[in-house]
């Protein structure tokens, strides 16, 4: 599946939206703290405005290849779930499923999955996640993510 978008126009609108968000959140700052961000916001607005004008009058739509977007959306959703779970469960207990599911999603694109693929993914996930957990916590002295479980 392909879509056509005017990237200049959309980039300009994104820049203007960002400038507006930051502008309305600048608060009551003193001169020394505000002078630089104000200048950057002005510059951002000017560049974004120019991009909008270029997009409106000379922009040519660009074709974007949307193939493979569903696994990406799935991957991002997986990361969000992992993020929600990590503080309540633990690094190893959340990251092993994250690793295994992500590996299987990628492997699935090459063809149907077998039970062996699933077992392999889980075993590799346990080895890799457990291995890095050990390296960080024991060798580097960094206990990854304080949580009830490892």
């Amino acid at each position, binding site marked *: 599946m392909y879509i056509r978008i005017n*990237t*200049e126009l*959309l*980039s*300009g609108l994104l*820049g203007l939206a*960002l400038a507006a968000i*930051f502008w309305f*959140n600048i*608060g009551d*700052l*003193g*001169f*020394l*703290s*505000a*002078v*630089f*961000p104000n*200048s*950057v*916001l002005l*510059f*951002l607005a000017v*560049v*974004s405005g120019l*991009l909008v004008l*270029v997009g409106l009058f000379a922009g040519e739509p660009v074709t*974007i290849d949307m193939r*493979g*977007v569903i*696994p*990406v959306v799935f*991957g*991002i959703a997986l*990361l969000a779930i992992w*993020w929600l779970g990590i503080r309540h469960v633990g690094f190893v207990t959340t*990251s092993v499923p*994250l*690793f*295994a599911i*992500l*590996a*299987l*999603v*990628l*492997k699935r*694109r*090459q063809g149907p999955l077998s039970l062996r693929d699933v077992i392999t993914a889980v075993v*590799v*996930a346990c080895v*890799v*996640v457990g291995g*890095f957990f050990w390296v*960080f916590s024991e*060798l*580097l002295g*960094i206990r*990854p*993510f304080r949580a009830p479980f490892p």
Partner: protein
Amino acid sequence: MDILIAAALAVLQPHMLIIILLGVTAGLFVGALPGLTATMALALMLPFTFTLDALEGLVALGAVYMGTIYGGAFTAILLNTPGTPSSIATTFDGHPMAKQGRALEAISVATIASVVGGVVGVTFLLIAAPPLAQLALKFGPAEMFWVAILGLTLIGSLATGSLLKGLLGGAIGLLIGTIGISPIGGESRFTFGWPPLQAGVSLIVALIGLFVIPELLQMIRRGQASLEPSDTIGNTGFQFMSALRTVLSKPVNLVRSCAIGQVIAVIPGAGGSITSLVAYNEARRWSKTPETFGKGNPEGIVASESSNNVMVAGSMVPLLTLGIPGAPPDAIILGVMLLHGLRPGLDLFTQTGVLANGFIISMGLAALMLAPIGLLGGRLIYRVIIRTPHYFLVPTILIVTILGTYALRNNVIDVAIMLGLGVVGFLIRGLGLHAAPIVLGLILGTIAEQGYVQSVLGGMALDIPQLRLVANPLSQVLIALIVLVIVWAAWPKRFSRKKQG
């Protein structure tokens, strides 16, 4: 001279040589895997340097950097897929040579060209950095502001293909850099009511998020299981002496490519892909047999590989003298320097001369180690790369990235910011907005802000305080350069449109 000898002795210790050996090998593997860039390699290796002292950490990252840029040539030659963007031009002649059964000859040529390029870059850095750091003392706040703007303008025009989009990216980076406590006013800015943002967005967190996560999401999108093996590797073995003769038989090509690499390397944010493409183009333009380029001419490989390896050390010139990274991987090295309390500039060479020069010399040693590691381990590296399943590679890199980000400040919020910026970076790629200007904006934000505010404060007696920014002759030269870059970036389009019309 005493400092240089002390620095050389410091990096010639056995444990230092082992660090360099491991760093080059690790970099070679990462660089040879398509999609994994030098920035990603350095980001992945970063947490493993935390237990090392400042010199050891910098030496390790320098070696990884050198190995990664060279490693990109392997898959460029064998699979027509550049391992890193800086090896794009290596595919033009490297892969045709592989198809002719001359893959190992091509790798040998690439190896020697990389070694020469690496050593040339290090030599230039060693000679030029201290006097340039001295020269940098002439740069006051206004000049530093304009240097930052020049860097943003250059990357906006060179690295993205669209000046306006490049400037937009740079402005977004500058804006992200203003989040947190103001460095001069001391007030809290743009925290959106979320206290963790008071500490600001860490440069390395942003760098990892914007460079690593979009690549991983891109790998998920492509869904490639593994690389297709090449049956044309050839059985003639590595040909060190004949490759050496090939490289040295065209000294002008070698010198020109190294010079191009060095000149482009000092431009902040220009990067290795531009360096190698320009060097390749010039090699073809000046060749007596330009028609052989693209069909397996070793001169093309020499141009590409020597220039991109010059860039590794060459891009450190603005980093070590002005604190402005010449290429995105340098930003990680800057981060490590700041973590160890080291500030770029003249003090780096006077007060911590052994460390600064030791780091530079270690990159020379890393360049020399490319030859034995690349030539002896080449076949093994090739087999490992071919057999590495991408469906395990992507989650493995993700886990290391997450742990590495967390390890920076033992802060779970950093991981959220890294992942969030990564997803945003992936989405805006579709709009033609690249990570490089955003990251450079973030890096240069503090330099630009300090220069800007101090200059404006100095000009409070004027009707328009901002006029203080343009008062000095050096500032005017820098402004002229910025205008020149903008005109140069805009000119070819108008010219070609006029011609088409």
